[in-house]
């Protein structure tokens, strides 16, 4: 028996919004520790990992580990039926073919329940390597979204370079070129959420497909900050912490300069 209740149901709504354009089918893996989802996009260029800790739920019970395979478009459609202020309860029997979703309005005057047919997704476990990153940037998530949106006007490929000067996002396209330099916030007059914090051990420069970075920014509503971690020649991690419960992390494989191969 699995049962999990979240007063702030909008987190689940936003999570699906952040997933559904990138991932077609995936498993929700339920255990005592919480829920997790890991999946790659269809072209295997990016990976998405969601973790929601059990202590972040208002009620959480998971008698034995189960995997609930879902189609993200379909789960998204059902979650659209929940209001942002609704409390959401997820329920499944140990050998269930269905996931029950219950939406309760704030003052309990409307209770809806939906059943989503589950799928059997026999997925490989994706062994995400534990990497010490050479550089980490924390910045406001909407600021990051804006940069990605702006740069997309000019081209398909974005270079992210971290130096002691700051983080430079650059794009080159048919129209011309664009650069956005983001510097660390000085002083203490800014709220922590609005600050840009760059932690650099050594300079890193990587190139990525903007299309995917744009998919990642669909998670902007999940939290005020985004944390970008990079090391040479390995995938970037774009993490959106979700307050008090977990995170969604996106991994994106870099573009490799032919000369390096």
């Amino acid at each position: 028996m699995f049962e999990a209740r979240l007063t702030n149901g909008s987190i689940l709504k936003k999570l699906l919004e952040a997933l559904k354009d990138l991932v077609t089918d995936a498993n929700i893996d339920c255990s005592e520790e919480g829920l997790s989802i890991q999946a790659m996009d269809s072209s295997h260029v990016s990976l998405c990992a969601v973790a929601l800790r059990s202590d972040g739920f208002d009620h959480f019970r998971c008698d034995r580990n189960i995997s609930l395979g879902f189609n993200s478009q379909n789960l998204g459609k059902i979650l659209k039926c929940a209001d942002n202020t609704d409390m959401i309860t997820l329920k499944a029997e140990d050998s269930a073919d269905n996931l029950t979703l219950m939406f309760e309005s704030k003052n309990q005057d409307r209770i809806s329940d939906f059943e989503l047919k589950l799928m059997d997704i026999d997925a490989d476990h994706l062994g995400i390597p534990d990497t010490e990153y050479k550089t980490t940037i924390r910045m406001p998530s909407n600021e990051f979204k804006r940069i990605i949106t702006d740069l997309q006007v000019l081209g398909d490929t974005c270079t992210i370079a971290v130096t002691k000067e700051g983080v430079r996002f650059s794009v080159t396209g048919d129209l011309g070129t664009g650069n956005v330099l983001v510097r660390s916030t000085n002083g203490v007059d800014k709220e922590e959420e609005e600050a840009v914090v760059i932690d650099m051990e050594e300079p890193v420069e990587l190139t990525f497909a903007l299309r995917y970075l744009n998919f990642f920014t669909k998670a902007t509503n999940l939290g005020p900050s985004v944390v970008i971690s990079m090391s040479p020649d390995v995938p970037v991690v774009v993490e959106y912490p979700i307050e008090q419960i977990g995170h969604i992390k996106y991994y994106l494989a870099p573009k490799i300069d032919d000369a390096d191969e």
Partner: protein
Amino acid sequence: MSEATPTEPPSVGPTIGLSSFGKPVATRAEAVELFKVMTTGGEKPEEIFHSTHGDGLTFMSDVPESCLGGADVVLGIDEAGRGSVLGPMTYSAAYWPVSMQEEMEQKPFDDSKALTHEKRRKYFELIQDTPDCGYVVRVLHASEISRNMLRKVPYNLNDMSHDSAMEMIRNVQRQGVKLTKCIIDTVGIPENYKRKLDKAFEGQGIEFIVEKKADANYKCVSAASICAKVARDEITPSWVFPEEGFVPVNGKEWNSGYPSDPMCKVWMESNLIDKVFCYPDVIRFSWGPIKDRIEERGVPVVWEDEDEDNQQSSMSDFLGGSDGGKRKRQRLGGNKVQKGIERTELF
């Protein structure tokens, strides 16, 4: 098929649109002969009834004597087969001296849509037999239309129409005809079209009239609409499929060729034979109903190098997993998922 070399839109150069059949012919008899090739197949039907790799053909009658020597000439333009899902779109211009206008008003030419097939053929012969009337027909094959509309930066049907009209006007001018008035049945918003023409022929003393229903209201546009419609009606049923071994189910029973036509629907349904290429190239692949059917019934196509992305590395290369991180593509299937989040394996 993925990245066919895009053809340039017709430019304003001096030889544009004059493919093998595009040269003006010396005598009226020769023009009639040429058109007969079109109507009977002639010796080399594939040159007309085939799709082409480049642009379609331009047919021109000889230039009437009375239209030369500085006489003011009026020209009308109309098209046929625009909305059809298959076969060519034909564009035509008909012209005569302004001084003959009164006489021409007596001709029974009318909007080709208002005429029966037989009447149209008869009036087309009448046009051919009218020594003061010259005409041009530009054939835009389905393959040319598909290719243009499906380019990375699409060259749309309205622009093709506009450019074909300008190309025909220039072809007539190039024969030494002094055009003073051009009347065009509009494609798109008349004001915009007129502005485009005024700009392209600035300072050449041509008055442009661009209107809806010009094909019913002006004799020279009616004449052009007859030429265009007859050309399309001859080419489509005589089509020679260039696809080797392709034998259509239902022959060419596509009737009008319009996507809403029940007979055409049946044809589209029963002739999606090849799972990869789907249709022969008499079909306009850029049309919605065709795209839908291809999507639904053709095999899915994956372009491995889409977005010229051979520099994009794969996420799988960075993952540890059941059989190492060296796989180019990690496919679903295999080990059962372990629970929880684990970050165990290194690169």
